[in-house]
């Protein structure tokens, strides 16, 4: 559906994008993450044809945006970070205008405006001037304009900004319902939203793709095999003694007693490889019962901090 290849964007001497490449399959919901200034909005602006790249190519449904801009723009809907709303128009007028702008006839545009207002739950505000709407409603009107004409590719830059928790849930459900039939690319600072919504993540850092994978795989990929959580039943002194003497463990910390005689520990493995089997046998041989033992699972937020933080350290070393 969308192919981005070696995309470079220079603003004067500053290189905002340093040759990013990725592709998105049809029907995927993809999250574009990155710190401020990482190049998320620039990437989206280039994909939608608002900005031109210095070099590289963007192909949407096998069409180059520079060669066939009209056809490409016909198949995409864009919600920019700063909402492109004409405040002195009513919601109905505005969405009808967007429909006509996308080539629909007057009657079709009116019908399409009704459809998207229904989907985004703003029908009751259709005769209100946009300037009189709350931030949440404006955000929904912004999403509605991107959905006009039912484009198969939706690019949404920070769609959750300014929404209250209930509106966020509604917006999340709406975007989720679009998945499968539509390809959606979302950028957001709210990582938990991205984690629950997206099946694929692209992390940008300093104008480069720092990581790209399915959400679950990305979390597993960056999970640290050396950090373990252990719950074991036995005498506290004996357990500590065993952990001190074991070659497998470099360091450990007692987190507390979760049940009677059941202690939880955080361990740092002395080896690179998985030590869970050896650890289990060690306690079993000493007549102690292991309740649980698992590798520390990173959340998307941890992965994001790990990736972007590491790059920063790397940069500062240079």
């Amino acid at each position, binding site marked *: 559906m969308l192919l981005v290849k070696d995309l470079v964007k220079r603003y004067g001497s500053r290189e905002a994008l340093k040759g990013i490449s990725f592709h998105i399959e049809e029907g995927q919901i993809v999250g574009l993450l990155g710190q401020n200034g990482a190049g998320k909005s620039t990437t989206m602006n280039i994909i939608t044809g608002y*900005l031109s790249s210095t070099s590289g190519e963007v192909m949407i449904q096998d069409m180059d945006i520079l060669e066939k801009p009209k056809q490409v723009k016909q198949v995409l809907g864009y919600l*920019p970070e700063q909402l492109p709303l004409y405040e002195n128009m009513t919601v109905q007028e505005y969405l009808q205008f967007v429909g006509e702008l996308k080539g629909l006839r007057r009657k079709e545009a009116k019908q399409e405006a009704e459809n998207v207002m229904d989907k985004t739950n703003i029908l009751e505000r259709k005769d209100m001037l946009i300037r009189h709407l709350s931030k949440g409603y404006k955000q929904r009107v912004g999403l509605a304009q991107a959905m006009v004409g039912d484009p198969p590719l939706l690019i949404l830059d920070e769609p959750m900004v300014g929404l209250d928790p209930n509106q966020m849930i509604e917006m999340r459900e709406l975007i989720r319902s679009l998945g499968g039939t539509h390809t959606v690319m979302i950028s957001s600072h709210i990582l938990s939203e991205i984690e629950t919504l997206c099946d694929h993540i692209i992390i940008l850092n300093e104008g480069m793709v720092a990581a790209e994978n399915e959400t679950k795989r990305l979390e597993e990929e960056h999970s640290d095999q050396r950090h373990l959580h252990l719950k074991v039943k036995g005498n506290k002194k004996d357990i500590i003694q065993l952990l001190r003497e074991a070659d497998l463990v470099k360091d450990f910390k007692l987190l507390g007693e979760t049940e009677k005689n059941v202690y939880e520990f955080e361990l740092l493995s002395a080896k690179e490889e998985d030590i869970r089997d050896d650890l289990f046998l060690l306690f079993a041989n000493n007549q102690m019962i292991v309740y649980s033992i698992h590798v520390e699972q990173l959340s998307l937020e941890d992965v994001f901090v790990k990736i972007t933080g590491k790059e920063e350290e790397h940069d500062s070393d240079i």
Partner: protein
Amino acid sequence: MIAIYKRELKAYFTSMQAYVFLALFVCITGLFFSITCIVYGNNDFASFVLSNSFYMIFVYAIVAPILTMRLFAEEKKHKTDQLLLTAPVSVWEIVLGKYLASVTIFLIGLLLISIFPIVIACNGVLPVANQISGYLGMFLFTACMLAVGTLISSLTEEPVISMIVSAVVGLLVLFFSVLVSFLPNGKVPTLIGCGILVIGIAVLFYLDTKKISIACGALVIGAAVTTGLYFWQKEWFDYGLTTAMNWLSIEKRYEEFLNGILNLSSVVYLLTIIALCLFLTTQVIAKRRWR
């Protein structure tokens, strides 16, 4: 393009701009009509009102910039240009839709002030041919000024700045022939004028291509053409500067219409200026994508 045209037209009325423009335009015209035609008894509305210097200053330096001030400046300021530029419409369609909306509002004003010659016709003798020529001239000249205003609006994010610059440019256009009369005549001033023109073109080439070789090439060709012309037709250079400037003057062309002269070359010239300004506007907007 029709969608943009319709939205823009509607925006003129929802933002009060159209009402302010029409009210000022009709009131000022009515005031000049009352003084020159009713008090002094002149029957040629086009020659005595439309060509009045004070009237022209009011219309082109104060009233007309109101129509173009927010065409592109406000879109950029409120980021609504993102909607237009990511929609399946070309930059040409955007520019033309907006420009035609401003011309339409002016046409409404022009229709409203038609009442004044009709009043003369009902109460006396009206030189009809002169009025038609004057109205056509005013329409073309204003369409030209609106195209200039559209271009200026695309260069800034502030509608007020756009209005002020359009007003200053309007004044310069109106007083162009007065300014030209201060220019010296003779071979040396004409050669200096040609030199400035050639350097200007070379600089434009450089700004557009960022290639010094192309700019130098333009400079060399320009210098060669000027030298060739000088040795071929020396007498052209005696009054060359003022003659060329007067030929370029938009206001001189407008005066011809107001004096009842329908000159095809003037119509073509004014239409060319409109096309050039609109083309430059599309280039300014397209260029912004490459920043």
